[in-house]
């Protein structure tokens, strides 16, 4: 049961705040939807686990408190800001942090796991 992974991803996405500033509400709702999605995925293996059920109820409470709709964008991988890699002149240095996927892994223990798919022939 990987409910703790869902919890930690939610906390890191919202920097642990339960009461976002009004203009952060969309981001907060997106993070809650991601959290709900994550708990749904663990439903099968976490049935009966107290941490799982309290997470599910907690999400419902927070969503109703902040008038978040169940449908809508989920929050994208949380990225951190680092100076753009040297030499990439075309890259706009003020490009928002969220547009550099790999930087979000600088502060996590593991680098992203990459996978490959290929198709060829007729």
């Amino acid at each position, binding site marked *: 049961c990987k409910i703790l992974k869902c919890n930690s991803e939610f906390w890191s996405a919202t920097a642990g705040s339960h009461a976002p500033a009004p203009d952060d509400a969309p981001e907060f709702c997106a993070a809650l939807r991601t959290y709900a999605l994550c708990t749904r995925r663990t439903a099968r293996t976490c049935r009966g686990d107290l941490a799982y059920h309290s997470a599910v109820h907690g999400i419902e409470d927070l969503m109703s408190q902040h008038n978040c709709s169940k449908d809508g964008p989920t929050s994208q*991988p949380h990225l951190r800001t680092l100076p753009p890699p040297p030499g990439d002149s075309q890259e706009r240095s003020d490009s928002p942090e969220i*547009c550099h996927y790999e930087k979000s892994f600088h502060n996590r223990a593991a680098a992203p796991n990459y996978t*490959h798919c*290929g*198709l*060829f*022939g*007729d």
Partner: protein
Amino acid sequence: PHLRTFTDRFQTCKVQGAWPLIDNNYLNVHLTFQPPVPGSWAVSSPHLTIIFKNFQECVDQKVYQAEMDELPAAFADGSKNGGDKHGANSLKITEKVSGQHVEIQAKYIGTTIVVRQVGGYLTFAVRMPEEVVNAVEDRDSQGLYLCLRGCPLNQQIDFQAFRAGAESPGAHRLPAASPAPSAPDTFPYETAVAKCKEKLPVEDLYYQACVFDLLTTGDVNFTLAAYYALEDVKMLHSNKDKLHLYERTREPPGRAAAAG
């Protein structure tokens, strides 16, 4: 076509119609095969469509389309990046060889795509973070795309059955059981093997696919398609120990020798 999935499974599929290669929250890639012309032994050329979905303040939705003899160096709207948003340059198209090799960097999702036209065929390759691969709303329904689950069993062609028939002396026709159509009598098995070995000295599944394609189409260009497919694996696959894939029943030469 021959398919290598995100989980390093290698399959040869009989396909007609539109097939989703990738379908997640960020990206949709599908191939459209026209049904074969009656009496021919191959489907006509595929049409590749790649849709980069709208992503926060990085990119607008962008569509890339390629087909035979039409490998554009821009998105369908003529642009070469993600549009007008702040992070637009986190999506870029680069033409490596005009009309033959295009790369698309989608930095906002850590993804690289390579599209080639080799001889008369399109090849596609992608490198994507696992987190992005699994970002689907409802995995049960959306997870059925080729790169993740491969093609259905009843759509797969079995190399071993095919090779058993092709290796028998003089008979380079496919065994009746094999579902793949056989080519005109132009390629003896030995010639196909020699041609493929020139470009693919390691007898892995890319080599097997090359022999299969030469015997079933009689088109030596397939040697290049298999060769570049393996080149793309070398460039995009993060585990260099998994470049070559072998049939389940066969161990790679080194490992078989070690096992004695």
